[in-house]
């Protein structure tokens, strides 16, 4: 499994590029992953999404659906797609350090 050095830590990823252990995550790691997937700067709104996703994952063992994400984090669908262009669910999960989302919605 690939190991990358990000923000001074050795982070293990699975073959699809999702973090193996979400506990290795911190904001600096998130910023470095984001830069690698085409989001050069993470702002407060990005972190609202990321923190909500991490919370949902810790509670349910899976990332939230886009519907739950927009309703409960207070970030509207349009903005979510602007914050994480080209595939918000997967991209946000990647940056949030949680596994690939399993739902279809």
């Amino acid at each position: 499994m690939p190991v990358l050095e990000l923000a001074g830590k050795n982070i293990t990823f699975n073959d699809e590029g999702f973090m193996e252990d979400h506990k290795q995550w911190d904001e600096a790691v998130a910023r470095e992953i984001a830069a690698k997937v085409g989001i050069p700067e993470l702002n407060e709104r990005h972190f609202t999404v990321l923190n909500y996703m991490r919370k949902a994952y810790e509670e349910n063992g899976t990332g939230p659906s886009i519907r739950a994400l927009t309703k409960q984090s207070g970030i509207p669908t349009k903005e979510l797609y602007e914050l994480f262009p080209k595939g918000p669910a997967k991209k946000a999960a990647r940056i949030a350090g949680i596994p690939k989302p399993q739902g279809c919605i």
Partner: protein
Amino acid sequence: MTDIFAEPNVLGAEDETLEPVKKVSIVISRGSLEGVYPGLIMANGARMEGIEASIFFTFFGLHAIVKKKMNKLKVATVGNPALCVPDAMGMALPTFLGAIPGMSAFATYMMKKEMEKIDIPPVGEFIEMIHDAGAKLYSCKATVDMFKLKPEDFCPQMDKVLTVGEFYELSAGSQIIFT
């Protein structure tokens, strides 16, 4: 080292030169609940993956974007031999029972309840979500003329009425999916 963050990953593809899907044009032609949802789910799923998506609503599929109809779509309980009660693994529902008044409303209620559990929104909310996600929603001109529909009959998310020719023009580079 290969880029582990490469998106979208073409999973399981033996031929690594295969291009990922970039654009889909989905045709929704049926107006029952089970006729409309697959197309909506596929369009929304496409946007979630960063795939460009548009939906062309034609014939009774148009009901999904007509304000007065969109939230009243029903499951077809007649002429649907796959329909079982109380769930997919239950007993087949004979067509003559499906014709009893209220049966379609009941089947619709049951299906909506199950959909809500897995976070599939009602049609109106789903259309709004898909539109906000950047998908384009088009209606078929022949159907609009045939049903004598006016612009005010449509939900505000409907982008444009298209002829079939225009639909093909806008689908350049798309995979066209008929549902």
